[in-house]
């Protein structure tokens, strides 16, 4: 299977409003793809459908060849589709380590009895989880904040923690919702390098929703453009840059057309 995720003819209607209109979207294995479009184009809605938060009004979503359209969000997360949020949604009152360990919930197996009794198996499992959390934190450069409350971290570190938490799900697909919002150009560049490194080192595909065109152009293999819920263009960054429809969608039409 060359595509790890396939969305076919997905539509999302809220009452009479069609937020997403029959969109086809695929995420190839070990790729970086982006979804862009003017505000209100339906990007985040589509995003939420992929993670199971909204159910599509039409269409299907396949993951690794399996139909996941009906699955609840936590199941989708546990089989390998992870996401970050536009407004950071960390568990502020839990430490960085605990945030990651929450994401490992579906991987850990200890039940109520073994937790209460702290069986050797449970203790080993917990230790393993702590070790994995520390590894991930080191990987994203937050190694010394393991026991700090997430709320106390700087904005940039919080963004990194969110990514680390998503990675703790051991995902095949990582969905990043406006990951460079609020970053300056240097921070964005660091982020770009990080994304490239992720895809090179792990069996993972990344999908971004982004407004920062520099980031989109320099990191994506393929760019998809949504406008008013419809897919209006898809191709390499070069192709999209010079696509007339895309330019019109962002800047508005130069002449009034009826």
């Amino acid at each position, binding site marked *: 299977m060359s595509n790890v995720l396939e969305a076919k003819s997905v*539509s999302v209607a809220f009452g009479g409003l*069609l937020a997403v209109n029959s969109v086809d979207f695929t995420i190839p294995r070990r790729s970086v793809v982006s979804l862009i479009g003017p505000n209100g184009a339906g990007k985040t809605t589509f995003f939420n459908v992929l993670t199971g938060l*909204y*159910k*599509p*009004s*039409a269409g299907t979503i396949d993951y690794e060849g399996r139909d996941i359209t*009906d699955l609840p969000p936590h199941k989708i997360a546990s089989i390998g589709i992870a996401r970050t949020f536009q407004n950071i949604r960390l568990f502020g009152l839990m430490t960085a380590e605990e945030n990651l360990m929450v994401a490992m919930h579906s991987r850990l197996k200890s039940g109520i009895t073994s937790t209460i009794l702290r069986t050797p198996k449970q203790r080993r499992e917990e230790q393993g989880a702590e070790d994995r959390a520390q590894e991930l934190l080191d990987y994203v450069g937050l190694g010394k904040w393991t026991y700090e409350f997430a709320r106390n971290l700087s904005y940039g570190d919080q963004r990194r923690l969110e990514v680390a938490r998503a990675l703790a799900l051991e995902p095949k697909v990582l969905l990043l919702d406006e990951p460079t919002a609020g970053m300056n150009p240097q921070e964005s560049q660091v982020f770009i390098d990080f994304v490239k490194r992720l895809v090179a080192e792990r069996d993972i595909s990344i999908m971004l929703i982004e407004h920062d065109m520099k980031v989109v152009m320099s990191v994506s293999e393929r760019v998809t453009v949504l406008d008013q819920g419809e897919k209006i263009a898809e191709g390499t960054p070069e192709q999209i840059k010079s696509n007339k429809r895309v330019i019109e969608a962002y800047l508005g039409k130069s002449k009034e057309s009826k």
Partner: protein
Amino acid sequence: MSAVAEVQKFKGTPGQIRRQRIERIGAITITLILAIWILVNIINSPQQFAQVAVLGLRNGLLYALIALGYTLVYGIIELINFAHGDLFMLSAVFSSYFITVWFKQDESNPAGWLTFISCLFAVMVFGAVINVLIERLAYRRLRNAPKLAPLITAVGMSFLLNFIGLKWNGSTPRQWPTVIPDNDIVIAGVEISMITILLFVVGIPLLLGLNYIVNETKNGKAMRATAQDKDAATLMGINVNKTIAFTFAIGGAMAGAAGLLYQQSIGTTNYNLGFQLGLIAFTSAVLGGIGNLWGAVVGALLIGLIQGLNDGLPIAFGQQWSQSVVFTILIIILVFKPAGLLGKVTTEKV
């Protein structure tokens, strides 16, 4: 075929279709059971049925007045004001003191009726003032706090008002004379008391008045705007604090009126009243669709009817199960159709 039409034809994912089917079967089953029960009782004892039904509807009107307070407040700040039922109870106690103790009216005569009318105004002011005070002192500070905090405060406030009722009314129920004339009129073999007529005569204009305020006045429009989107309302120049206070005021006034009507029609006051009737009223609001004013009225009439039938008919669970019946209805609605009869389902935006 256009995309929109295609979407509208599409019923939903298999999981959604299954769920809709279950809901539909459940709704039909419940309606059938209710219909059969009602029919059995009509055939069994038509006279009694009509009698009990009228009583039930009358109670429903009372519940509607209280339910409106719940639904208005929930609609605007998404808080179940647990203390609202106890406000109704205090209003009932207030009315009893006003009419019987302070103005010493205990018979049905012009002086009594005049006192009744002045009490109506007084108790509505009483209810409005107390409700606004509660909001100002306790709820306003917690408006932006996580859900748990204002909920717990509301529960505490309910206890507080309960205590005031306990001290004011005493720990045992008290009986009060009424200034409403005693006679009945008979329509189609059904006895309708003056009390019932009075309730409709006072209650319906109140509901219409509320409807007018909410839909036609500037304050009402401000209320509806704030209920939909607080931030947007502020940006439009609406004073959110004043609007919320206004909402509490009219909700409290309705509860006040209900207190007076209850006290004069049933004739007893009990510090426990708020809990019992409060839950019934809130169930009515939820049944009709929380946030929807007409829903609250429809829901209340329905609940009043069902409860009246259950309490009064020979083939029913009987009065000692009254609370449980109403609660079970509440639970069933919330589990299967949380939007209620007239409400809309909202999805959380991420």
